[in-house]
């Protein structure tokens, strides 16, 4: 009897110790995910190795190199400083445009939200400009700015700016009126109301806008780099890397470029999420 209890106790202790690893190992969602990716890569490998099945060319995948060739190309590319330079350049452009968009967009959106006159004057032109896709600004941007670098930064900025402003405005305008009433009843001044209620109440929308804006920023940067090409004064970047690989006829390298941009975008949005959690500890519980 006592032995049984004792052994049961031991078992629970061991289980508790292993439980974390075990939980991960027994996580069916995780295994399904891994299996799916492995199967996908296998499928891709098979399809692009044997170009034809029963005399018919495999659509899409048959035209691109297999994952093994992509991996080879990647290993080779990793040793080139130019590849890392591309990462650096794209990240710099994304963050330059993005940060300026945050610095200008958050106060602008807030001003639209809290001041009626400001909104009446600035919202209509804002709404006229907002639907213009950032890439449609490229020619104008080239005329506006002396260097290609600044033109890219400007188009990138526009990509994030409109999204951030519209989210900040929406977030600040939809704060529950009860919070404002409660704060005012407790004697909050206008400044308190802004700093302690409207600002934290808008933070979730600010970060939603930032996350969406970051995605658009990457799209814009890659497209702008493809358009601007090597250029005399500037160039490079992951978009340029991808485009020049295509021009050079290396499809494996094109895929390396595509996956690199995917990773870069993922890293950027993870960063936004992480910063969001730092700023909004109360949202961690959801």
């Amino acid at each position, binding site marked *: 009897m006592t032995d049984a209890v004792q052994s049961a106790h031991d078992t629970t202790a061991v289980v508790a110790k292993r439980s974390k690893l075990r939980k991960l190992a027994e996580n069916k969602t995780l295994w399904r995910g891994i299996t799916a990716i492995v199967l996908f890569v296998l499928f891709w490998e098979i399809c692009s190795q044997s170009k034809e099945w029963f005399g018919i060319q495999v659509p899409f995948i048959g035209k691109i190199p297999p994952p093994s060739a992509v991996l080879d190309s990647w290993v080779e590319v990793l040793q080139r400083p130019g590849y890392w330079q591309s990462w650096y350049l794209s990240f710099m452009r994304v963050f330059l445009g993005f940060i300026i968009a945050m610095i200008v967009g958050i106060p602008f959106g807030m001003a639209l939200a809290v001041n009626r006159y400001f909104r009446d004057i600035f919202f209509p032109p804002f709404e006229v400009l907002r639907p213009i896709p950032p890439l449609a600004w490229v020619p104008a941007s080239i005329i506006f700015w002396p260097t290609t670098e600044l033109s890219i930064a400007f188009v990138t900025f526009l990509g994030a700016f409109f999204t951030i402003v519209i989210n900040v405005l929406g977030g600040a305008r939809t704060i529950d009126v009860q919070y404002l009433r409660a704060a005012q009843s407790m004697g909050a001044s206008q400044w308190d109301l802004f700093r302690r209620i409207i600002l934290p109440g808008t933070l979730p929308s600010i970060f939603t806008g930032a996350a969406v804006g970051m995605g658009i920023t990457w799209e814009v940067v890659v497209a702008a780099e493809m358009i601007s090409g090597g250029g005399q004064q500037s160039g490079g970047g992951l978009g340029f890397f991808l485009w020049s690989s295509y021009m050079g006829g290396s499809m494996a390298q094109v895929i390396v470029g595509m996956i690199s941009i995917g990773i870069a975008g993922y890293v950027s949005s993870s960063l936004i999420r992480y910063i969001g959690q730092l700023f909004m500890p*109360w949202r961690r519980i959801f």
Partner: protein
Amino acid sequence: MAVKEKNAAQKISSTTAKGRGAVSIRNVTKIYDPEGVNVMAVDNCSLEIAAGEVCMIVGPSGCGKTTLLNVIAGFHSLTSGEIYLDDELLCGPDKPLAEQGADRMVVFQNGALFPWKSLLDNVAYGPMVQGILSKSDALDKARDMLDEAGLLDVADKFPGEVSSGMARRAEIVRALINDPKVLLLDEPYRAMDALTKSIMHEALLEMYDRTKVTIFFITHDLEEAIFLGDRAVVMTTRPAEVKKIVSVKIPRPRDYKLLSSEQFRLLVEEAKEAVHEEAIKAFEAGERELA
């Protein structure tokens, strides 16, 4: 005649103003006018609430109870009539919108603790922004008050991390730290199950026995009204005016055993008849609105 009435009203409020927080509602009418469609929410409503009284306002949903509360709190203006707090004019013909102030604290229907502040910071907010206390003093006082309410263990949690019952209790503490003359509660326990509700009731009564703050409590739960209140004021359906006042002469402190007493049951019956009539009217009016 009108003057005589006014004098009488004045007399009542001055004789009862031993403590603080006497509310005098005199012939208050509120008409909403959204784009020319007049909706009368409150019609010529008069009510004297004594200092330190627990006044329960009972009526069917949408009858204009909340409008009355919003006028007292200074969220809405009134159309005619006057409201006094301790013989001081809150709002009247020349000043239709009362100033919002910490002498009238509202506890909202859906809860309005700031989700981005811990319970402690929520409670300390009032004295801090008013500059009455320094930040550290405000936090100390908030901690003491949360302790008294049995919420010290969860003081550092965010509202989203605690149960709705705890959040609501913390919200009442947040109101009380401002030392209000009147506590305005708008169906604070509406969405709670009966068990949680009874715990909340006892907690509120315990707080009331300690502070003796005037309470203006809106509900449509009759048992809640009789259990908590000194008086249950039954309102008519929109436009709201006083239909019946049920005095609850049950001594305090009260506890849940009261719920099964004959006296309690009779009082609930008495109020139920009046409320039921109004509920039917409200229901029929609603049908007409839909038709």
